[in-house]
């Protein structure tokens, strides 16, 4: 798949610099000066809401999400030295995501879709894609309420769901999503396009 180059990141999340340079010389060293608790409070604690929401979308309910976030926080604390001064939100969310999936494998093995299954899903969806469709969207989805929307997102395969949630609910950019979900940006892009189409399809069928 050939992707026209995305714009280079020049924002504060960029490891490569201008125009906004928030990483002052010496900031790297200052990580070394912090004890684990201080580092944890600065890197992890500000993102507990985001962590909880992602865990909730992945596990499907608030109680499990709390367990996952608590578990993920412990893992983050143990791994805090591996945080290398990059994007703390994407770093934490990738831990939350991995924790959620191992939690699901252990407690809800039926809900886990393997990568092979996902490929089958994508193929099937590729066929869905070619359907002709001229229905204007606005009239249909204007009637969708929060519950229907939440249920439709919950029905998405996990790889699509997490990508859509991180982009359209949490507002992460593609690079952060790639980091959090540990896939290349090209994969983020195709999953996002498919997730959105699939979601629209479900909402239309619900109508």
């Amino acid at each position, binding site marked *: *798949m050939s*992707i*026209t*180059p*995305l*714009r280079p990141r020049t*924002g*504060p*999340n960029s490891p490569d610099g201008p*125009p*906004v340079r*928030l*990483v*002052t010389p*010496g900031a790297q060293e*200052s990580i070394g*000066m*912090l*004890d684990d*608790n*201080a580092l*944890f*409070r*600065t890197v992890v604690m*500000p993102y507990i*809401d985001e962590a*909880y929401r992602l865990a909730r979308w992945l596990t499907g309910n*608030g109680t499990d999400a*709390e367990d996952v*976030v*608590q578990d993920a*926080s*412990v893992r983050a*604390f143990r791994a805090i030295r591996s945080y290398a001064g990059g994007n*703390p*939100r994407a770093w934490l969310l990738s831990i939350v995501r991995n924790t959620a999936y191992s939690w699901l494998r252990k407690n809800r093995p039926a809900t886990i879709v393997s990568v092979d299954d996902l490929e089958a899903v994508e193929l099937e*969806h*590729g066929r869905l*894609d*070619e359907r*002709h*469709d001229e229905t204007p*969207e606005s009239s249909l*989805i204007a009637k*969708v*309420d929060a519950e229907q*929307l939440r249920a439709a997102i919950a029905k998405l395969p996990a790889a699509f769901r997490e990508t859509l949630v991180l982009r359209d*609910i*949490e*507002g992460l*950019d*593609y690079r*952060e999503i790639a980091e959090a979900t540990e896939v290349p940006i090209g994969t983020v892009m*195709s999953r*996002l*396009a*498919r997730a*959105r*189409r699939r979601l*629209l399809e479900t909402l239309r069928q619900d109508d």
Partner: protein
Amino acid sequence: MSRPRSDDNSVLLVHAYLDGELDPANALSVAQQMSQEPALAAEAERVKELQKLIHDRLPREAAPPGLRARIESSVGGTRRERAKPSWLALAASIVLAAMVAGTSTWLVVDSRQQPMQVAELLVSDHIRSLMAPEPVDVVSSDRHTVKPWFNGRISNSPRVVDLARNDFPLIGGRVDVLGRTPVSTLVYRRAKHLISLTAVPADGAPALNGGPRSINGYNIVRWSENGVNYWAISDVEPKELELFAQLFRSSQNEL
């Protein structure tokens, strides 16, 4: 009308365009493609509808009360550590907070900063943006793209209004740094001139008075609204900049 497949490159680029992920040249070419291919324009409409639906129906809920406390106690030691601060660690955590500020933390703008200093800094940011390869970090004329882009970069997502009808089209946004505080700057265009509009949270400080009307030939219009100080900076005529400020202030169409 047959729908292009979702793995079609042009479809992915339409999504990337709406997400503010394209560089200006590619954004322009995608916009042109959309104007020529109804299927792509329809895709864009559907995605925008969907994003609006998600935005309207699914507010982002906070973690349940008590979760943070449980986390602190499960990693242990945090309370003890707080009771007996290490000044070195504290100083370092301030440096680190400044470092991660770009992604979440909102550092309070020094309220002692005088209007003149703020104006100087913002005019410098404006000039720097004109000299940079591009004046914005997110390129989009769609406020539904620009506003969410600030989420996670700064904690207060700015008010973004569409003034294209009044010939002040939105170009995009960027994060400027005022002192050590990241602030949101929207960039609008008037003919061939760019207008930088920076929102600086007042954090309870009394509204600023005075301040320069122009620096180095750049005109400045400033106002305060809902606890936010707005600074509009541009080389357009002062009257035009005043008009822009009036339009922005009277605009209700945030959503």
